[in-house]
Structures are given as C-alpha cells and as structure tokens.
C-alpha cells in the first residue's frame, strides 16, 4: 500500500537483510495483537483465550490521543500488525476507503447482524459492506445534583422528563454560585461532558433541523454555517460567555467536579451512572433525566462508540476474525460489557435487554441504566458519515473551543468551513 518503498530503501534493505536475518521461531499458538485503548482489557483476553487455547491475544494499549496517529502510520505503512484494531466508529469510512480494514460480512450470521442496533451496523459499514463490528454504543443523559436544585428552590426533573435547552438556559444561571465572592463562580450551573466535541454538540443544530454534513459527505459550506448552526452555537456561546453558567478554559471531565459538588448539571454518557453508583465517598445526591432539546425543534440524542476491525494485511485472518466475533456478539459482548471497571453501553439488543431483566437494575440509581437503554433506541443521531471525519472532527473541536472561550460564532464557523474545505479537497 502507500507509500511505496523507494528503490533506494529496497536495495539497501536487501543488503541489510542478509546481515540481520531475524530469528523468527513459529510458536504453537497463534499470537495476534490488538491495538486498543488503555481500558481494562486483560479480563476479556483471558476469557477469550480460555475458550480458544490455540490463540494468544496481546493487547497493545495506547492513550486516546495517540491511537489515531498509530493507526495512520502502521496501517498506512502496510504493516501486517496489529491484527485487530479498536476503531472509533466515525473513522470506519476513512479507513475502509484506504483499504485498511478487512470486510467482515462473512464473519457474522444474519441473526448476529440483526442483534446489533441498526444505527451501529450502519456506522460500522462503508458502501454496504461491514468493516468494523459494533462492540459498544452510547447515548446521553442529563445528570444533575439535587442539592443545587434545593439550594435554588427549584424542582429537579424526573427520569423521564426531557427539559428544553431554553429551560436549561433559565435554570443553569440559577444553579451557578460564587461563594467566595472572587467574581468567578465556585459552583457552575451546567456543562457538556465532552465540551468541545462534535459527538455531543451536533445534537444542538440537529435538534433545530440542521445537518452535520452535506449529502456528498464532503460539503460543509452552507451546512455548518447554516442559520441552524449559528443559532445552536450562539446558544452554546451564551452559556459560557453571556449567562456565565459554564466554565471556560481547558477541557476537563465534568464528572470529576460533579463528584465534589462544583457542577450542578451536565449532559453526559451512561458510563457515569455506574461511576457515581459505585463511589462510596460520593457526597452528592444525584439524578438523571432525558437528553434536552430545543422547544421549536425535535429531540436529538448523540450515539456511537467503539467498534472493532481487522487489519486488511493481517497474516492471521482466522484468529483475528474469531477474536472480533467473540467480543462483538453473544457471550463475549456480554462479558465485555460486564468487565470490571467497564461501563460501556452495549450495542447488542440481546445484551441491552438485560437492563430490563436483571435484578441489579431494579432499583435507583442503577435503574437509570434502563432510562439510558431506552434513550439509546428512541432518537439516536450518529456522527456524520464522511471519509474525512477525523479532519472534520478535529477542526470543529478547535472551533468549539474558540467559541467557548469567546470567539465570534459566525466568524468561527466560517473559518471552520474554510479549514475543512481545504482538507476535504484531497477526497474530491
């Protein structure tokens, strides 16, 4: 694949190879490598190896920020390792287009495909072919601190209520408190969990009827600077800059300061339910309601998460596809979801159904997982399908960070159009 080795390299290589022939002993079990994030992976590997004694799985774990460059260099270089790759789902089309991923249709039965949430199957496919199997998905809920509502004399919403963004705009400043009087609040009213990421923020323009990307999957002019986007991100701008109800500055994880009582509401993923429920020191009384929407618009809830694919150049197709099959279907998918320290949201309807049947979800707060499971099926809005997703995402991330910290909304969105256009040019 690309880039081709120049003659020079090949020639010198020949000479060197004669001097430095590696001793490659063929082991009994096949070893496959799995490039993935730093989440707890040993557990699922042990379970898989116990069931498949002829395969060894070695996890190559990298930080979230490093995964994309790793894939770019190693698969771009045509390397035969890693065999298996965790893929952030919107990147599937870009990788499939470059022929980096093995088509997976023959690996799964019709029933297995039907068990996955349809949005997850679509997101893992490119031009009708499945390239990455769904492992988990996600949805978003509003988390709130009951104590803040009491303090402001307001009633918190119920689990099945869906507040409007207009209501949030009204409540959030009332839940913002400057206790030490230094001019900067110590307790903030509201924030988005992934505060500058398109994953979460595209629900704002979509609720108003805006689109994430043009129909050709490349055009952004007239889409991300449309009136819907300008209105949505003016709301976002106001939250940070006018109503002063949300903190500017660095990106951080709101759950950290939600636990210390320094933020009263945030829109975040269901992984927080388990986190708060299992925190014995948590001094905050909390609750959950549905993902907000604009009063004039319709509900729109973000979705999408991690899939798993096979390197098209792997030398261990059989072992790699068996591992992918294991982790994305049936028992393996259930084990992955139940892994210690996990908290992912399964993409398999059979596993999702366990939220309704298992006794551990009968009572608060874990019963909120049932709310989440329902929310995941009602109005899921996956991220834009475009071969240039990474460019699109990263540039918008910069843009949202700028708007959050006070840059003009329209100017920033127009600059984003200019930047994304110059990146998308290579796909035209």
């Amino acid at each position: 694949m690309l880039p081709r080795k120049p003659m020079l390299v090949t020639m010198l290589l020949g000479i060197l190879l004669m001097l430095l022939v590696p001793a490659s002993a063929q082991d009994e079990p096949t070893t496959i490598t799995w490039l993935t994030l730093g989440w707890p992976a040993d557990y699922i590997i042990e379970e898989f190896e116990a069931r498949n004694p002829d395969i060894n799985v070695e996890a190559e774990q990298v930080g979230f920020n490093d995964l994309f460059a790793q894939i770019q260099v190693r698969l771009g270089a045509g390397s035969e390792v890693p065999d298996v790759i965790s893929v952030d789902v919107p990147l599937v089309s870009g990788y499939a287009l470059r022929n980096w991923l093995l088509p997976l249709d023959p690996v799964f039965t019709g029933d297995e495909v039907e068990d996955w949430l349809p949005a997850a199957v679509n997101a893992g496919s490119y031009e009708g072919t499945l390239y990455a199997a769904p492992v988990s998905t996600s949805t978003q809920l509003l988390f709130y601190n009951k104590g803040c509502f009491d303090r402001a004399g307001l009633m918190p919403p119920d689990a099945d209520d869906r507040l409007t963004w207009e209501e949030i705009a009204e409540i959030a400043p009332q839940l913002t408190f400057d206790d030490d009087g230094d001019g900067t609040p110590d307790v903030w009213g509201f924030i988005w969990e992934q505060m500058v990421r398109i994953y979460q923020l595209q629900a704002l323009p979509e609720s108003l009827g805006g689109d994430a990307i043009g129909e050709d999957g490349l055009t952004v002019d007239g889409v991300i600077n449309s009136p819907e986007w300008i209105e949505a991100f003016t709301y976002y701008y106001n939250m940070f800059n006018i109503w002063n109800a949300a903190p500017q500055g660095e990106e951080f994880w709101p759950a950290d300061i939600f636990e210390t009582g320094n933020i009263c509401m945030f829109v975040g993923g269901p992984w927080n339910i388990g986190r708060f429920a299992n925190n014995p020191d948590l001094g905050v009384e909390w609750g959950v309601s549905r993902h907000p929407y604009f009063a004039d618009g319709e509900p729109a809830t973000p979705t999408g998460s991690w899939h798993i694919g096979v390197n098209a150049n792997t030398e261990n197709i059989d072992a790699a596809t068996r591992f992918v099959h294991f982790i994305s279907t049936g028992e393996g998918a259930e084990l992955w979801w139940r892994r210690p320290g996990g908290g992912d949201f399964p993409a398999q309807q059979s596993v999702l159904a366990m939220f309704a049947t298992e006794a551990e979800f009968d009572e608060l707060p874990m019963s909120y997982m049932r709310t989440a499971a329902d929310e995941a099926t009602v109005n899921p809005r996956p991220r834009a399908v475009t071969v240039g997703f990474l460019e699109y995402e990263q540039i918008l991330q910069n843009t949202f960070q700028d708007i959050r910290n006070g840059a003009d909304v329209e100017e920033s969105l127009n600059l984003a159009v200019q930047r994304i256009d110059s990146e998308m040019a290579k796909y035209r």
Partner: protein
Amino acid sequence: MMPARQQIIPYLFLLPALFLLVVFNLMPTIATLFESMFVISLRSGERVFAGFANYNRIFNDPIFWKSFQVTVVFSLLVNPIQIALALGLAVLINQRAPGIGIFRSIYLLPIAVSLNVTAIVWGLMLDQNSGMVNGILLQLGVARQPFLHSVDQALWSIILIASWIGVPLWSLFILAGLQNIPPPVLEAAKIDGANAWQSFTKITLPLLRRVLAFVLVADTVANFLMFAPILLLTSGGPQLSTNLIMYETYRRGFLYGDLGASAAMLSVMLLIVFIIVGIELYALRGRD
C-alpha cells in the same frame, strides 16, 4: 606514517555514524520528501505522480500561510529570548561563589524533564480555572488570565514552556564552553584594565564563537521542529494563533493521512531552515 593510511582514517571513524544516519535518517527523509511529488487518489487507492500539485495546493491554502506567519513570529521571539537567557544563566552559574554547585544542580533539573511532561505540567499550572499561576495572581490581586486560551497570550505561553527546558539546556553547553576558556586569558585582560563588560564582549564572546554557533543553530532547529506542546495543549488554537508549521505538517500527515501535502510542507520548511542555518553558520564562521 603512511599518507595513504592517514587518508583512510577519518573515513573509518565516520563510517559507523554515517552508515546509521543514512539508513535510519537520510533515506526515510528522502522517501518522505519524495512523497510530496505524489498524490494518492483516495477514490481508487492509486498513487500517482503529481509533479508540483501538492506544492500548488499548499501555496494556495490560507491555513498554510497563516501557520507560516505564526512560525515566523514564534522563531523571531523564541530564539533570541532563549539564547540571551541561556548566555546570562551560563555566566551567572559560572561565577565562583559559595553554594553555586547547588544552584547549578537545580538549574539542570528541567533538562531531565521531557518536553511532553513539561507541557502537561505547565498546561496545568497555566489552567484558567484551577491553575497555580492564576492562584498566585489571585493572591496578588491580579485578574485571572486565560493564558493558553487567549489569542494574545497563547503563543507567549508556548514560548514560556519551550524556554523552561530550552534555557537551562542551552546554558549547559555555553557553560561547558566558558569552562574551556583558560583563566589566564581573562586575568591578562583584567591586568590590562578591562572592566567586566569589556572583557566579556572582547574576550569571552569571541572565544565562545564555536559554542555559540552550535547553540544558535541547534536552538533554531529545535524550535522549528517543536510541536509536542502544541499537540498536547492547544491543537494550534485559539483561532490558529499557535498553529506552527511543524504541527500543521504533523496533523496533515499523521492524523489526516494527507502525506503529499505534509511532505510538501516539510520540504518547504526544510529549505527555509537550511537557509537560516547556513546564514547563522556563515555569520559565526571561524577565521581559520
């Protein structure tokens, strides 16, 4: 001694290093730059010769020129600042004063800390909401500063982070150079009645010429090549105000997979750095 054997000795000494450099550095560099002449059609996967199409594309790209401008401003600020401070620090810790060894040890500390770690720690120190620098400013009654989130302050913050390692590092080499100056030379100047400043500019600086040439060139190059703090802290923002060319090159090639444009940017930068370094070496060339 046989002249023929004489002649072969320097080549033998060079062989291991140059062989390794050619195989692991020069060839990959050439292969990378070669990519700038190719375009990979993402529709068919074909890699086709494109002549100067990638160069044409970047030269017509306003983002490239914006990054170019940021890089020029950054270089014009960071290099003189770092070299002046490094020279000052080296002179300072070259004094013969009680306890100077302790100071010297402390000033070596930043060199041991990696640029990634430095960027992360300073990123936290400069945090707008809970950073220590703002914490100290609050105690002093100064308003909270946005630092990395302000178009006006972000580049200066990056300069601070780069200099926290850079100044001690380059002063280490200048210090080594200062110590190579034989004390009798300076004593002779003192007897001739030169004051401290005169003996510094007339005696010390000329004797430091080779060291300063090294430091100037190495510092210029290091600052041109640096992009880790941008990657970790600002992603080139706010509003592209820290979007150094090397970061844009990395982003295009390694995140967006646009190897052609990335290689074209790299070769333009390489040409510019080569010219600047050539000028620097010429300006500080020896009389020999």
